[in-house]
């Protein structure tokens, strides 16, 4: 097996074009597990860790570009204020060691339905910057996940960065696991309020072949929430929202939980996180009015 170690992103793209079956490796927290279990045996590994530009993030006019190689630990430390949802999800990933190594780019590359950042990226309208020697294209998160562990990247493409707006409103992420840390989600849910646009982003994880938007739930809320004169939410609204989120899922039974439990738990997470996010929004509104 070849181990390719480009120093620049351009070099990496050239190598990937030459050898499309080379498997990129960032933190390696998914790749090494797969190699260890002999789930795959690629002809080459393409090590991205020497590429400084992938490990950088920048903010211009409230628009963030987060390099695909920024590890979770730094997202938590440095981006918690601007990307609270992503930071929340990052905090629940693995252990300190995994958060030091693991990256959002890797989460996207693996495209596991259970990856923790996916619902947040969907709810926050993230756009994935995919690059190849041929050029760069921008893929909305909603179009990125194609199937179980399949994404929209072409064989010669690498993920350069993820683009997100600094949270325009409150964001929440919640995950149910079979223990309190180091755990793959039984199911997860993210919500992002977009007050200026008077709409809500909502997405489910680990509850369908891909992470996905809860579109009906989003539309329902857009119609129900009174953004101009916000008031406490009716229980009936939270309940209906929860039901619609659960309906968006098409989970399976597995060792971590049954399909029925996943639907039930998603409804609970949706109700709760909506409550917290709206409460947050109310708090802000009152503070701003006062």
């Amino acid at each position, binding site marked *: 097996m070849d181990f390719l170690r480009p120093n620049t992103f351009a070099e990496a793209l050239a190598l990937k074009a030459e050898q499309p079956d080379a498997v990129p490796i960032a933190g390696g927290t998914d790749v090494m597990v797969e190699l260890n279990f002999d789930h795959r045996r690629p002809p080459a590994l393409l090590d991205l860790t020497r590429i400084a530009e992938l490990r950088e993030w920048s903010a211009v006019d409230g628009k963030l570009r987060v390099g695909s190689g920024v590890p979770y630990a730094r997202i938590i430390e440095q981006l918690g204020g601007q990307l609270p949802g992503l930071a929340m999800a990052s905090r629940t990933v693995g*252990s300190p060691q995994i958060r030091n190594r693991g990256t959002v780019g890797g989460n996207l590359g693996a495209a596991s339905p259970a990856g923790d950042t996916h619902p947040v990226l969907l709810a926050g309208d993230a756009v994935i910057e995919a690059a190849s020697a041929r050029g760069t294209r921008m893929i909305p998160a909603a179009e990125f996940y194609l199937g179980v562990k399949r994404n929209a990247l072409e064989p010669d493409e690498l993920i350069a960065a993820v683009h997100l707006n600094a949270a325009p409103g409150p964001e929440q992420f919640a995950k*149910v696991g*079979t*223990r*309190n*840390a*180091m*755990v*793959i989600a039984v199911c997860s849910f993210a919500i992002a309020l977009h007050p200026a646009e008077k709409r809500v982003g909502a997405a489910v994880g680990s509850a369908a072949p891909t992470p996905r938007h809860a579109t009906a739930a989003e539309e329902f809320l857009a119609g129900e929430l009174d953004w101009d004169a916000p008031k406490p939410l009716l229980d009936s609204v939270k309940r209906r929202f929860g039901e619609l989120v659960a309906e968006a899922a098409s989970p399976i039974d597995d*060792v971590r*939980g*049954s399909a029925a*439990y996943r639907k*039930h*738990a998603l409804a*609970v997470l949706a109700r709760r996180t909506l409550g917290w996010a709206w409460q947050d929004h109310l708090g802000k509104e009152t503070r701003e009015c006062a």
Partner: protein
Amino acid sequence: MTSVGTPVPRVDGLLKATGTARYTADIPFEDLTHAVLLQATIARGRIASIDASAAEAAPGVLLVLTHLNAPRLPRMRAFAKGGSAQQTVPALQDDRVRFAGETVAFVVAESQEQARYAAMLISVEYDEEPPAVGLHGDAYPPAKVNGQPPDYRRGDAERALADAAVTVERTYRTPVHHHNPIEPPVTIASWDDDGGLTVHEAAQGGVHMMRLGFAEALGIPRRKAGSIRVVSKFLGGGFGGKGFMWPRNILPAVAARLLGRPVKLELTRAQMYTSGGYRSETVQRLRLGADRDGRLGSIVHESTSTGSDMGEFPEPCAQITQMLYACPNVTGTHRLVRQNVGVPTFTRAPGEGPGSFALESALDELAGELSLDPLELRLRNYAETDPEHDRPWSSKGLRECYSEGAERFGWSARNPEPGSMRDGRWLVGYGMATAAYSSHTWPTFARVRIRADGTAVVRCATTDIGTGTYTVMAQVAADALGVRPGDVTFEAGDTRYPFAFPPVSSSGARSIGPAVRAAALAVRTRVARLAVKDRESPLFGADAATVRAIGGGRLARADDPERYDTFVDVLERAGLGHVEERKGYGVMPFLHSTASGIAPWPVGPLLRVATRPFAGRYSTYDFGAQFVEVRVDPDLGVVRVSRVVGVYDIGRVLNPRTARNQAVGGITWGIGMALMERTTTHPRLGKYTSPNLSGYLLPTNADVPDIDVHFLDRPDPLVNPLGVKGVGELPVVGVAAAIANAVHHATGKRVRSLPIGPAELLG
């Protein structure tokens, strides 16, 4: 100034924390070869064909053993019959496959990678037969359970049940558990030119027991077993999974003999699930009968666990029921159901672990029936004497454990109504359970040497399985000699040292401690004898027997502590490099004569003696009380353990730091058992579905709350001269039941099948 009882830090702590402790796998060897196991992918059937030619031709490959070419190996004597094995059937002897994961080939190559690669080139075809999976088949009684008959009866429990005013009849289930120590088992075997064998092992099994096992497996007569040396210096956890001779221990020695080179086998994590036993799943039916005041008139505890064609280890669940409460009519039975899943073995708190889950849950259910406080129910059935053997306890501080635990925990704040206590959206529940464990005293010898520079070295063939033996035994020797613990080195884990039984069944402190103490006192007396005969000594003319150790390596006259001599001076004047004594403790007469470690291995009688210490005059047990608070998310069915208080009577506490470590670890085991640990077996294929730490969930730091551990620290006056009982397993016992009881208190839902998951709580 005594060191025993003080929290001396681990002497090997720095080594371990800095990664410089040399574990078995770290030992460098010249000319080392590497082995891997190829394991059966079916649970039952025959090997129709096995073709190793491609593997044999692969780069670096030195040897491929299959049933077609492996040397003939004998059946091993079972541990329960005085041997060293749980799986008595040796590997690679025929074409039968008896469980998934049984070794079908053993590949040795220059590197581990080459061996792994070659193993993948072996093609095996199987004639598959449907395996027996689950505890569904016909149940049969095992020959023995922990050396006792499978059935126990006192009084007439069935009749008393029929007459009881209140009865509870329930069935409880516990799943397969694996030991999952952090260090995978490793064996490195090398033969020297004279036919001597040295084996470096990650061995909990006691180096002497393994030596005899190697002799048996390799056809070396017992009288020549001295040519086998087994070494095990550090262990990354064992918990029973490194306790016996398994084929994985034997094959490297077989291959090393054929190759004339050292062979190393290190298991993968997945192979650990099939190569060293496990805790059987259990189904336990409990029937309790009581009067309206809660006095138990009858208990019937029927336990079923896994049987195997390859060996027998019934999980001794009902044994705790036989001794825990004052109840005139008790029946305990153990049955097995044959499965194609390999042989189970001891796992931390064998029997008491799952057994207490059933018994202590059932007691909680009875308390509910009677509207009686669960703690009060236990007090009403307090056994003042051992009801099983009808004799006094050597010591029993359980009543104090209950009261101290209840006080620390705030048990009186418990509202008896299930579902009545809340903290925000969380339902809060309190639960408790009794803990008891029959730790043992095993025959152990120690040699203590005081050297001319006043430092001492203690040698004993036990292994420190991570519990702190190196530290604590230095403390014991230091006090007996009257020197600082830093001046004593405890050396262990080598058959060249005096015989010790495997450190199993919480026996370490109570078996090794008295032997070390006796040897140290003997050394001291010998030095005193030298001094009192020496005209230049301030002790000249004193009675050696009354000479006292006053610390700092000084020996003083009983009547005048100002007149003292020192080890250094006495030895120097006598021109001696060192003075040495060897002593044994807990030693059977028949072992005494052959204590070189090549002794016969009469485990059967040992077990009998050990369960009846003090020549049958007293019973000795470790006791404790577990109190648990849980928080249950009523919408998600998620359980969090938010507080644990454990109060234990383990006799004298030799070192509160290492003892607390055992208690916190044990309680954490209980949390894992209650909420997450489970190995699942495919119901049709008979294979474990996720033999790894991603599928087998262990508690993380975030799952373990602050744990309040308290020891009564009351020396047991009868058990041994140190007054120490056992601590390794006791803190596991009852925790799962206390958690299940707390969950019931929080939610009103009774979960009788572990682990407790959301499905049960929401359903």
